């Protein structure tokens, strides 16, 4: 019995190596294979499916238009189940398979970070569409992410939305006392101190708070020109309760993005609300609407920003391949070119900074007549 188990273990260890070796021999020089790590099953399955559909849409379009430098792109999709161990095993397989030129994925920061030492040792790019942990991209020269860092939006908010767009100086902040809320606030405060914004009052609350009236009274006593709300779930309640006291202060929020739920819950109280978002399905943009329609027909559900970023990663790889010109394409040239290329993706302009992630250029949105309206485009931050 013991021998049988031992044999099974040996076989299971050796089999993937043989399999991987077999694949690398069959490498076709006219095909560039990209490994995809996505949680196709488990809690994040919707996002994994979004990755698969979004990336395949990009590959189909690129191949139909003649490929990248004349070479056909091919996806090798593997299910990481949102599990770091699973993801690492798959990343190692990709690393050993020399026909794989780059990895696209994984979905979570946790999985992507677990894979960082593996891709670093293999000299293989891991380009994550969605990992937003500020520590991820700096882990290796081969790790990249395009979601934008958690610590870049709050400073943007201070500088461009409150100081430049609204032209206001006295800010009252109400934020949720959580990992996310506290770090967002400290990032906001650091930038506010740097540019001379005056935070006249900052109050916080814990998850599941329902009554904000005393916090609102406290904020109001400090007489701010704008109230910034840092949270997701409680933002509608805070807006309703602020308006319920008859206080017509300018409102701004960081966290919920262009959430439809927020509009549904607040109605006319949200009117005039200002917020930031890296991406927005603008109904006036015919190309974007066509993209959304295609995605819905293939995936069967409405896209969020995540499949959009997944789509863009394929175009980034394409740009990196094309940047080699007539030279040889290797894992290393893809990495070197990827760090340099600059494209405008569906999710916005994409150019990596030193660690390998990017500072998203956020759009400024306002609620007008019950709808999100983009007030300033991507280029605003460049001014």
């Amino acid at each position: 019995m013991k021998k049988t188990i031992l044999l099974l273990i040996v076989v299971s260890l050796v089999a993937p190596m043989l399999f991987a070796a077999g694949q690398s021999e069959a490498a076709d020089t006219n095909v560039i294979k990209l490994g995809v790590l996505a949680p196709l099953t488990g809690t994040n399955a919707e996002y994994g499916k979004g990755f698969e559909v979004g990336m395949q849409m990009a590959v189909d379009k690129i191949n139909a238009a003649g490929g990248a430098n004349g070479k056909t792109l091919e996806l090798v999709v593997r299910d990481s189940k949102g599990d770091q161990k699973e993801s690492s095993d798959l990343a190692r397989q990709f690393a050993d398979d020399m026909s794989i030129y780059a990895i696209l994925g994984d979905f979570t920061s946790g999985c992507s970070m677990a894979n960082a030492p593996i891709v670093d040792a293999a000299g293989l790019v891991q380009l994550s569409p969605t990992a937003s942990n500020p520590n991820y991209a700096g882990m290796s020269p081969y790790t990249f992410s395009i979601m934008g860092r958690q610590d870049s939006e709050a400073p943007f908010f201070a500088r461009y939305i409150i100081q430049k767009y609204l032209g206001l100086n006295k800010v009252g902040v109400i934020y949720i006392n959580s990992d996310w809320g506290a770090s967002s606030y400290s990032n906001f405060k650091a930038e506010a101190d740097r540019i001379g914004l005056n935070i006249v009052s900052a109050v916080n609350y814990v998850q599941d708070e329902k009554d904000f009236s005393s916090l609102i009274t406290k904020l109001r006593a400090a007489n701010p020109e704008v109230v910034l709300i840092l949270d997701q779930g409680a933002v509608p309640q805070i807006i309703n309760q602020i308006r319920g006291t008859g206080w017509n202060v300018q409102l701004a929020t960081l966290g919920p993005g262009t959430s439809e739920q927020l509009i549904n819950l607040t109605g006319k109280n949200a009117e005039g609300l200002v917020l930031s978002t890296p991406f927005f399905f603008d109904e006036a943009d015919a190309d974007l609407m066509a993209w959304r329609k295609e995605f819905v027909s293939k995936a069967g559900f409405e896209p969020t920003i995540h499949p959009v970023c997944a789509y863009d990663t394929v175009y980034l790889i394409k740009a990196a391949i094309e940047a080699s010109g007539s030279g040889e394409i290797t894992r290393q040239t893809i990495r070197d070119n990827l760090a340099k290329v600059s494209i405008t993706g569906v999710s916005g302009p994409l150019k990596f900074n030193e660690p390998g992630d990017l500072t998203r250029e956020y759009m400024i949105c306002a609620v007008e007549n019950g709808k999100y309206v983009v007030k300033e485009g991507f280029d605003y931050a460049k001014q």
Partner: protein
Amino acid sequence: MKEGSYANMWDTPPSYSLYETGEAGRMDYFLNQLINGICQGAIYALMAIGYSVVVGVVGMVTFTHGEVIMIGAFAAYYMFFLSGNQIILGLIVSFAASWVLGYFVYKVCYERFFNAPRHVSLLTTIGFSMLIKNLSQIIFGPNQKPMLDVVEANFFRIGAVQISELQIVIIITVIIMATLLSLIFNKTKFGIRLKAVSQDKTASYMVGINVKRVAMLGNCLGCGLGGIAGLLLAVYYQTIQATMGGPLGMKAFASSVLGGLTDVRFSALGGLCIGIIENLGITVTTASFRDMFAFGFLILVLIIRPQGFVSKKGAKV
């Protein structure tokens, strides 16, 4: 004096200083926080009144009160959705819905356990509250729902001290409910039976009171008051959610314990105290410490007076 409703508030210039600087401004600010505290305390008081009626009459502690409150809020939500802003209709429906739920709570959690050890019915109420909460999440959905503006958002000002029409409606409703309950307890035969049962079940049985029936009705009455508290909470916070009951049940329990668990008047006082202490606590710190003030105050009072504000047995109004 009366300010305009906020339907056209966008026409008014943005942000103005509400408070004067210096001592006068500080006082106004303090008074505003006090009003917030009284309003919240009034809702806690109504929850606590219902709670102590249940505990007093049935004689067993309940942990379903949070869910009873939640059902009242949802009943009001659907009633307002159908009828517009008929607040009286909403009050009746939420009272009735929670009354009906109270009947089931009685049947499941109390009826068969009067002679069983106390922890049996206690655990049953905890289990039943989970059942109601999870069922509600399935039926109503897990998301927050927006409450309609039932009371127009007008507000009144005396200097910088501001009180909204909504706050006035809430405080008045609570006072009316408390007065009605007091009348029932003191002026009706049913109320006297309720008092008798809460004071001594065996003696009540001996003088010919149908103890189980009275306990059932008393339980339903307490739950109905909880349902009205749910309506007020929903209107005040403008959102409802299936999971809203848990922390509220704890506040009702704490207020009630503060008042001595079964004394209705002192439970109401306990609720009011907790509401005010919370809001004044937030004045000097921030809302992350809300529950610390509420329960810290409770512990402090219980250390000094373990019996709460009052010590005599039985429900009194």
